[in-house]
């Protein structure tokens, strides 16, 4: 059967559109399956802590640093508590204006 130039052109356009659509579908599926997970920057630390840095077993130095930081924070906590208690007793230092 003889094809007219118009119908040939139409077939060509349909073919190109179909190929483009197929590529687009494949790209979307690829992104959904293998796309990168964006890490949201929050101020809350991760809820589960790894055993060490980068998933490896912690070294002696890393443990030592952590414990040293723990000691510093405990001492700071004690200072903060002392400040609260001093403020609670501030009534003893009040200078009342005698009316």
């Amino acid at each position: 059967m003889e094809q007219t130039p118009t119908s040939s052109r139409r077939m060509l356009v349909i073919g190109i559109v179909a190929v483009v659509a197929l590529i687009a579908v494949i790209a979307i599926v690829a992104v959904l399956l293998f796309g990168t997970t964006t890490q949201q920057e929050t101020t809350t630390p991760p809820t589960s802590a790894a055993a060490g840095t980068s998933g490896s077993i912690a070294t002696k130095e890393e443990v030592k640093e952590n414990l040293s930081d723990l000691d510093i924070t405990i001492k700071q906590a004690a200072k903060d508590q002392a400040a609260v208690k001093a403020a609670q007793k501030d009534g003893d230092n009040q200078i009342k204006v005698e009316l």
Partner: protein
Amino acid sequence: MLKFINVLARSKSLILPLVLMFSMVLVAYSPMAAYTSAQTANSNKLKEMKEQATQELERRIDGYKKTLKSMETDVKISKETSSAKITSDKGEVSGTLTRLCANDEPSGDSSSPSPTPEASFKLGKEGLAGTIALPCTLKEKTKEFLQKVIEGLTGMVEKVKNTNSLTEMTALGQNINAQFDLNKLTEIQALVTQSIETMTGVLENMKSSYNKLKGQVAALKECMKGLKSGETEVTGNITLDGAEVNCGEFDLSSSDIAEKAQSQLSSLSTVITTISSVVSSSVSLMMSLVSSFTGMVGGLGSLGSLGNLGNLGSMLGGGGSGGMGGLSSLLGSTGSISGIMSSFTAITSQLDIANFMSGNVSGGLSSLGNLVNLGGLGL
């Protein structure tokens, strides 16, 4: 003049008028003397009140400024070591640090529910999980309240300095006395916030240390499996969950080290979880209290404008610690000053317990670290 007086003196009929005149002068003199005396007393009283007021205002301002300064210390997490560090302007720790706080901010409206922090740490396969943290905006809010108080009191110092009226000074004095409990509450709220924040840092470090040691204990157990009979060293590295382990770092000298270490881990996890529960409940209570406080002061206007309330004393029922009932009924608020203050005292007691237990945990973790690591940690 003398001639005139002589003439008068000689005239006996003029003695009575002279006496009358003298009496009138005396009668006029008494009230004048009393008035002058009263003026002097008022002036002294005014001076005394101004001195007392100025001293008290400056004492408060100085104390609250020191408190604000202490709140510049933050708790931050080091991303490199997952360790919580205390930072301040002077002692900023280098490296990638992120502030330890929760993103949710309290609504400030006591009728709407506040975000609930985690109840406690959870123990899982990889160790302790969960984060106990104050909402990020809560500390800023408590600092802002205190800053307003300082501004208000600073304004009052000028007012006291410029007043020359005893009536005006009396009103100012009443206001200063009346404000004391509320000022003190604002300061304590800020200090307790700081205290809780630091404790969340303590918890974070305990969790991190525990999890690292847990990993080491698992590695030690794996290394023990590779020990040949009679040996105390494993040559080369082994792999555990995809991570390479240098067995030479661990003390493999005794077969019961792993058992002892596991037992210590078990005890420590229980105590750390308990501490996390205590701190978490403090965080929840703190959020609720700040919300109540916000509602309470909202009814008074700005904390920085309390000095303009001439009737603050009567609003608080006469000022001082006896006035909370008046404020509560005025605002219809359930959070009276004394009620909120009692709650802060309760939080402080809870944190005392948490702090005490933390000291023991720190010792336990160090002991465990020394047990597992060859040569100890040197702490």
